[in-house]
């Protein structure tokens, strides 16, 4: 086998092309206006009614997902990014829901309950490759500032959306999927039995025996862990 000058030049060009392509593929996708989606609730979730009118104040939303790129929800095909961080989207969504029924307190002092939300999952989870599996998962620390007692509630939302071949449809499906999962998670929290029971337990007088609430301090933010998966 002999290599002519023209032949070796062709080989060099081929190797250079291969190296450049590999390098380009290895780079992470970057957010651009074309691959960025805006996630928001289609309409606020109406919370359940309590025995007396209550006001909630959202103290903080903490990202506990451990994701290095929380705004990137889909990596292949140039990536799909959120326009705001998951914590900002969650805060806006929860506040909109509470505001819609006048349950959002203006400040901490006027609130009956303080909420601190720990976000574990916001975006897409592993699916069967035949569809998208949207998943939003968080825990909320509900605290009665008067009695200083608190209780943790977990909530999650899931959604399934079809896959698409065109990038535009792909983005639309991912956006709808995350929006549904987010709405579902907020609905799970605000209309759930867990919130009703926690409010009933914490809303009572401070010295009622048998209340399952924890005293403040025992549940520090570092103690909040992702709830175990259901088996």
């Amino acid at each position, binding site marked *: 086998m002999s290599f002519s000058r023209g032949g070796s030049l062709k080989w060099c060009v081929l190797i250079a092309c291969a190296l450049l392509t590999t390098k380009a593929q290895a780079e992470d996708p970057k957010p651009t206006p074309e691959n960025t989606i805006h996630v928001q609730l289609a309409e606020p979730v109406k919370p*359940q009614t309590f025995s007396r009118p209550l006001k909630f104040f959202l103290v903080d939303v903490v990202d506990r997902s451990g994701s290095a790129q929380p705004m990137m929800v889909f990596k292949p095909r140039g990536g799909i990014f959120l326009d705001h961080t998951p914590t900002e989207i969650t805060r806006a969504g929860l506040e909109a829901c509470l505001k819609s029924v006048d349950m959002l307190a203006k400040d901490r002092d006027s609130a009956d309950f303080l909420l601190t939300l720990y976000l574990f999952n916001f975006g897409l*989870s*592993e*699916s*069967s*490759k*035949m*569809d998208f*599996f949207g*998943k939003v998962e968080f825990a909320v620390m509900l605290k009665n500032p008067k009695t200083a007692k608190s209780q943790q509630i977990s909530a*999650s*939302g*899931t*959604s*399934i959306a079809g896959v698409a071949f065109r990038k535009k449809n792909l983005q639309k499906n991912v956006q709808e999927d995350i929006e549904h999962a987010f709405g*579902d998670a907020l*609905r*799970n929290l605000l*209309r*759930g*039995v*867990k919130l*009703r029971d926690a409010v009933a337990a914490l809303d009572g007088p401070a010295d009622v025996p048998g209340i399952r609430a924890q005293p403040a301090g025992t549940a520090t933010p570092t103690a909040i862990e992702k709830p175990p*998966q*259901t*088996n």
Partner: protein
Amino acid sequence: MKVITLLALAVFLVWTPPAIAKDPQPQFKSVEAKHFSRAEGVELSPAFSDYLYAELRAELTKAKLFGQVIGEDEVVDAADAPKSLVIVGTITEFKKGSVVKDALIGFGAGMRSLKVDANAARRSDQQNLTAIHVHVKVSPRWDEKVMARFAAKNIVKQLKDSLKSEAKAAS
């Protein structure tokens, strides 16, 4: 006489399409699917239950049998409880399958299999309305989540058939 017949036909044609297009009133106001528990010895990934739950909810929404597919442990008005269903279930068996058997023998040998038992009960009195048994078999090369998709489709299909036959029997 002909004119009257034509007019009657025209009136009939104008009135019938909206009646056909109108969705039938759902039999139940709401349905709640719970996460399925696992029998002892069932070794599936922790995310499987979540995925099956999501697929089941998606299929229930598509079935249009229920006014609303509510989330797990959601508060339901006492007045709506008699018209509300709760679906609970257990994954009773999972066999991983064998790619070698599937390739060498074929004819269903070495297939990955999943068995699920589910019950649909009325929320108000916990009366069991239907018992569902699903057995799904897929290629061992496929992801286990594909089984969840097929299982959810089968569960909803059986539920739909059962509720329809019950409604027919009642009427």
